[in-house]
């Protein structure tokens, strides 16, 4: 059990929230032009990150709003919370980029 800082309600226990899987997956503009493999990639293929993961959450038992979260899947540490439509904060992007290089 860990605490999540809802951007609207404030800090609440994790059981009030539901997990919405990986964030920032844009629906393809022209699905009719995609191959089956490309469409399957959009529908089914997800990262299985050990470390900083960008994901969607919804405050089910509270304000029922969706938002994005950067979480370390290894330690469950919540690193950042940001609104739908926003990109992760720079320090999170640096964290992810830094990991890729190493």
């Amino acid at each position, binding site marked *: 059990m860990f605490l999540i800082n809802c951007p*609207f*309600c*404030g800090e*609440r*226990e994790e*059981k*009030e929230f539901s997990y919405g899987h990986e964030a920032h997956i844009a629906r393809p503009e022209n699905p009719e032009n995609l191959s089956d493999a490309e469409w399957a990639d959009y529908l089914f293929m997800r990262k299985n990150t050990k470390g900083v993961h960008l994901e969607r959450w919804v405050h*089910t*038992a*509270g*304000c*029922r*709003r969706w938002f994005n979260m950067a979480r370390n899947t290894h330690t469950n540490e919540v690193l950042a919370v940001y609104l739908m439509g926003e990109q992760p904060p720079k320090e999170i992007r640096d964290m992810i980029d830094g990991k890729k290089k190493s």
Partner: protein
Amino acid sequence: MVDTYRLRSPLAHLHLDARAHEEADISGTGVVMKEIPYRGLINIRGDAADSAFVDAVQKAVKLSPPVDANTVAGKANTTRIMWLGPDEWLVITSPQGADRAMKALWKNLKTDGLHAAVTDSTQARTCIEISGPRAREVLQKGCSLDLHPSVFGPGQSAQTIVSKVAVMMTQTAAARNGDPTYELYPLRSFATYLWTWLEDASQEYGLKVG
């Protein structure tokens, strides 16, 4: 609106009125519980930054929707507006005031160019009031929020979980000695479970039905 004579509280089968009559003397009791059924519960949605929306709500129920998260505007036992989200509120009225508030909100918010929604959810929930010197301890057994008066005092509200039940909750008042009064609004199908759970959790402090 449902015809008044058809209304049936989800806790009617517990015969709380009869128990309240038997347990009339509530002095020295740790916890007092009662159901306050049939209150008007009207969900409104709109943009608090749009003065046309705020003015329309103000005109309809004489209150502005609160912009501070987890707060309620208005006094206990009068018409109030509870914050539910950044663009969503719950107007709480007396049973008698529900119809009038619904019509007034509908009339004032149904304006060209105004983006808003009004939904009557009166029948969806009931209200359980829990008060007394040990009321906070009872809730704290099933609720992970910090209910200390410095954090969750009168006028504060939350949508949260009390013993697995999603509720809208507010502290309406504190007595002069600091004893709090909370209102819980569970969905009606969860009301019996929540009532009996609260009743069980209150046993060690002494419970009376008010």
